[in-house]
């Protein structure tokens, strides 16, 4: 490799081969990237935005009601754990991402509980529905009285 260093006498053949290789790799790299972007655009044709932004929009109306609280419980089918179904885990993490700096705690041990797609899930007695997502997409916020 020491002889890779450029010298004017070596210019024509080696430099042209090198330039061609760089151009070829760059071209392939661009084609690959355009392919990825095109794939994404095709997928996003069926929905107005990427799935994360859609989920964030779904939870956005809850933010005003959650502002006074530092943490909230979280109920949905499945619990976040390493062995949980990836979809459920992703939903929990997405909720945390969307509602930060609120701390989301799995389960019902909290003053307020966010309920997503968990119709019929067991909730503490006396909990009250205090808000519902305006898009009506099975997103609820329940408050648990201090002394039920």
């Amino acid at each position: 490799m020491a002889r890779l260093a450029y010298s004017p006498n070596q210019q024509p053949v080696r430099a042209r081969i090198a330039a061609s290789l760089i151009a070829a790799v760059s071209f392939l790299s661009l084609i690959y990237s355009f392919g990825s972007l095109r794939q994404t655009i095709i997928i996003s044709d069926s929905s107005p935005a990427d799935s994360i932004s859609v989920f964030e929009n779904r939870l956005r109306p809850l933010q005003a009601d959650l502002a006074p609280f530092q943490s909230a419980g979280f109920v949905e089918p499945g619990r976040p754990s390493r062995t949980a179904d990836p979809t459920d885990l992703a939903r929990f993490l997405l909720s945390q991402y969307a509602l930060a700096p609120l701390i989301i705690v799995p389960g019902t041990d909290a003053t307020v509980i966010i309920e997503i797609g968990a119709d019929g899930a067991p909730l503490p007695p006396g909990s009250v529905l205090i808000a519902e997502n305006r898009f009506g997409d099975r997103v609820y916020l329940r408050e648990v009285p201090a002394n039920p």
Partner: protein
Amino acid sequence: MILLPAVVVPFIFGHVLILTFMGTDRHPSKGLYLTLAGVAGYGSVSFLYFAWRSFGGTASWHYAAAETLLAFSLLFLYRKRFPEFCSPAKAKPSSPMRFAAWGGAISIILSVALLAAALPHGTLDAWAIWNLHARFLHRATGLWWEGYAELHPLTHPDYPLLLPSLIARFWAWSGESPVAPGLACVLTAGALMGLAAGFVQAAGSRLAACFIPLVVMVPPMSMQAAARIADLPLAAYMLGTLGLLSTAISTRENQNGAFAASGFLAGCAAWTKNEGNMFLVVTASALVIFLFRDIGGKRAFRRLALFVAGAVPGIAALAAFRLLVPVGNDLVSAATNARTVSQIFDLDRQIQIFSAFISEWTRFGWGISWIVVLLWFIRPSEPRGTNLAIWIILVMLAGYFAAYLVSPHDLSWHLGTSLSRLFCQIWPSFAVMAFIRHGRRTDSTASPDML
């Protein structure tokens, strides 16, 4: 438009830092100087923003105004100091070669930007860890760390904050949007290519300097860059540290300044990821052995002290973060003594990890990785500085191996989700050092006072 000054201002901090560390004499090239200034500058504004928020500053234009004022005050103080660059090389690569090299670099940047556009929030690790942490820094109206330690362990609240702090800083300038993390990943890709080309060119391998950005940014690297995770910023800080150390040791010039600057970059690495903590400790330990064996006495002590002094901002930020957010690492907190000991001596486990290392290395570099390994076995022309670097890289690899050995998680899951990212951290340094090793710094085409 507001993003443009947000991108430029860190370069002013970096310019001041590099001048402070390395003085005005004998900088290798404008490209390498600019890249080093950018890398150091973004590290410094990450420290600044973290300090601003931790001392109660608001996430608003107030920070942008204060940062700009500080930057231009420093620029005014340094107005009469400009770096001196080495004389232009007598022989430059041909125009088609340079055209191809620039075309290649621009196409990679475009590729990363396109891939980033396809993933507005990045991959799961990006939004669930790094962007989430950035949102705490940006959105919290009170103390940002209140409740932060209670974040779910899967969101890794123990991870250092260089990248989240940088993203939150962009948001303080321009408002919260996915553009800032995307911009950070494009800048990181540019920094990696700039550092790689700059160090290789400084070593005298001008044709190789045209190639090295493509070697460093193999497709898995571009994908990881677009994923908006912290492994590539860490890779840039590791490359900056090792590049500065190896060139300074090889040329024996401006070593004091290079040791201080590399200490600063190693501190930034420690502030980026937990693996960066290990990198800082391994590099400092390797320097102790190298300096006291080869130089000894007061000079060795002085250079080591300069390296540590350079790392102080990173160590201080990390210490403050650990005090504010006292959360253990999942690998450590979930491990038990009996199970850890049994795992260490489990031969099947060792073989599984070793096999995963080999197969991932092959897959990761699309075959180029093994060619670069071969370069290390060809007799070098500049071995001294790169010997130190390769020992550091090998110890880092051994550290990764040990982490998998004692990991409390399912081994297949752990290897499958993290090994490629670990290789992303060391690949740029490994490849660049292999090319520097075969540079011809003293040949007729290279300036004798290069670096």
